């Protein structure tokens, strides 16, 4: 009886919370996009500039997400399963990138890779373009989405313990086999949510990437930069339309990942 009531109570709290913070704003986004029909949204989405921008965003995301996923899993394994000094420091360090506001990220990357920066002349001499080109945009994106996979995997790894892994090792499995057959399936949901968060962040990143991109029309404009441009042109429907596409891509990734599951289910 009591359990039933508290269950409804919790559900009510959750739904209320999500309605205010999540559903309301999303509804506004959809409403504003299609307020004047499909045409403004469609127009904004099908210009070559927008399509190129979406492509660029997808390319950057396709690079940043795997990099951060691999880093996140290796890092989580190191933190939870290995012993070393400074573990607490490392743990705290991983979250720090989020605490930098976009303009500070841009500033630090200018300080490093700008023409008067730490690596400026070195890069200049070799004709390598970091700033105002793809490399700096990828670096900035990796930076702002760095902690998510690690943060997801660490608590789950702690929770499940390593008995199965130890058993496998005693039975003679190699480190790689143990990882692939035992560890990875048991952290699959953590990895999935970590990848989702990372992907969403990469798709929606604006500030830091905008600063290092140089905003070169048709060359270094990402989807979020197009959103900004549409907003400045008073084309709110267009701005929101592009944003919806980004949100839908994130959702697609979630759907795709929850559908692909390794054969072994957790016992």
């Amino acid at each position, binding site marked *: 009886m009591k359990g039933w009531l508290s269950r409804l109570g919790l559900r009510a709290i959750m739904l209320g919370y999500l309605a205010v913070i999540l559903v309301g704003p999303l509804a506004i986004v959809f409403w504003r996009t299609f307020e004047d029909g499909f045409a403004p949204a469609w127009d904004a989405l099908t210009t*070559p*500039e*927008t*399509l*190129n921008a*979406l*492509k660029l965003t*997808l390319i950057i995301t396709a690079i940043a997400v795997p990099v951060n996923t691999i880093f996140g899993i290796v890092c989580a394994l190191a933190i939870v399963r290995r012993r070393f000094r400074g573990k607490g420091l490392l743990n705290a360090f991983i979250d720090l990138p989020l605490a930098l506001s976009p303009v500070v990220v841009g500033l630090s990357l*200018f300080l490093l890779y*700008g*023409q*008067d*920066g730490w690596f*400026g002349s070195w890069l200049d001499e070799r004709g390598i373009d970091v*700033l*105002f080109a793809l490399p700096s945009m990828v670096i900035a994106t990796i930076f702002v989405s760095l902690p998510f996979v690690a943060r997801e995997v660490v608590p789950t790894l702690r929770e499940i313990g390593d008995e199965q892994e130890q058993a496998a090792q005693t039975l003679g499995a190699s480190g790689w086999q143990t990882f692939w057959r035992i560890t990875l399936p048991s952290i699959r949901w953590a990895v999935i949510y970590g990848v989702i968060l990372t992907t969403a962040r990469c798709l929606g990143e604006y500030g830091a990437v*905008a*600063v290092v991109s*140089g*905003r*070169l*029309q*048709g*060359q270094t404009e990402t989807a979020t930069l197009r959103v900004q*441009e549409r*907003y*400045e*042109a*008073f*084309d709110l429907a267009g701005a929101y339309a592009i944003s919806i596409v980004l949100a839908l*891509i994130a959702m*697609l990734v979630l*759907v*795709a990942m929850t*559908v*692909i599951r390794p054969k072994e289910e957790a016992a």
Partner: protein
Amino acid sequence: MPRRLITLVVALGVLTAALAATATGGTAAPDRTADTKLSLVAYSTPREAYGKLIPMFEKTSAGDDVSFSQSYGASGEQVRAIKAGLEFDIAALSLAPDMDELVSANLVDAKWKQQSYKGMVHNSVVVFVVRDGNPKRIKSWNDLTRPGVEIITPNPFTSGGARWNIMAAYGSWRKQGKTDKQAQANLLKLWRNVEVQDTSARASLNTFNSGKGDVLLAYENEAYFSRMQGLDLQWIIPKTTILIENPIAVNKTTGDKTAANAFLRFLRTPGAQQVFADYGYRPVVKSVENANRKKFPARPGLFTIDQLGLGGWQKVQKRFFDPKAGVMARFQRAVGGSTG
């Protein structure tokens, strides 16, 4: 299993279609093969104007084999990007101090102000955007000091353009005969009425449109542009106000500046100036300005920053907008809480 498979196939299919669509989108970069490539780095508001002007230029003989790369962003941000290595042939910025920063970075000739039209490419004025029917009867700068009048303006420290608003207010009182002390006192009263300090001019327009405030200190070209995009704005040009002058200059370090200079000359032709006028900017060329008199009414008390006798932007920057000891910094502290 089949249901999962179907979902997966659909998801992958949509993703592939999306990628294919973007791949066939083609490049937005000009597809004419051109001998000369010019890069224009500009502040954000003239984007549409240049979008029209560049194809016009490319059709002229001077622009025949020229193609452009364009970048638009907040003026200060563009300056920082240029200093960090963003390539540019032409810089079109929002105010003279931003151009002077490029001078100190050895990228623009120090004599840029002595070029034709003082180095400016278009002008605007500071206006009061008011609510429908102007219920609070806001007409002059003195009206802004009345208690109960809610003012929206960007923060002069986060938005270089907002400095025009401050100097328009202060300068107007000086022009009307007030002493420096009196003008500052009025400015402080005005500042106490500021309810929101957005980070940029566009953001403050957005705030005003969301229903906040009685008056928005804005630029005439912004007001016109918003109206062009369907926003029903009403604004008043006060009798005394400042002339906003937007500078343009070429990169002095590039080898061949012929095309860049040709573009600058083109921008001051009547045809090009009319395009600026169409987008709400006051032309620098007198004949075009006169032809558009109806749209850009003259004002008896119109003044430029140099006409205030304060030593131009350089001295004004230090005196008013120094983050530590400037007048506006003091005002922010006076208006804000004591503990903060």
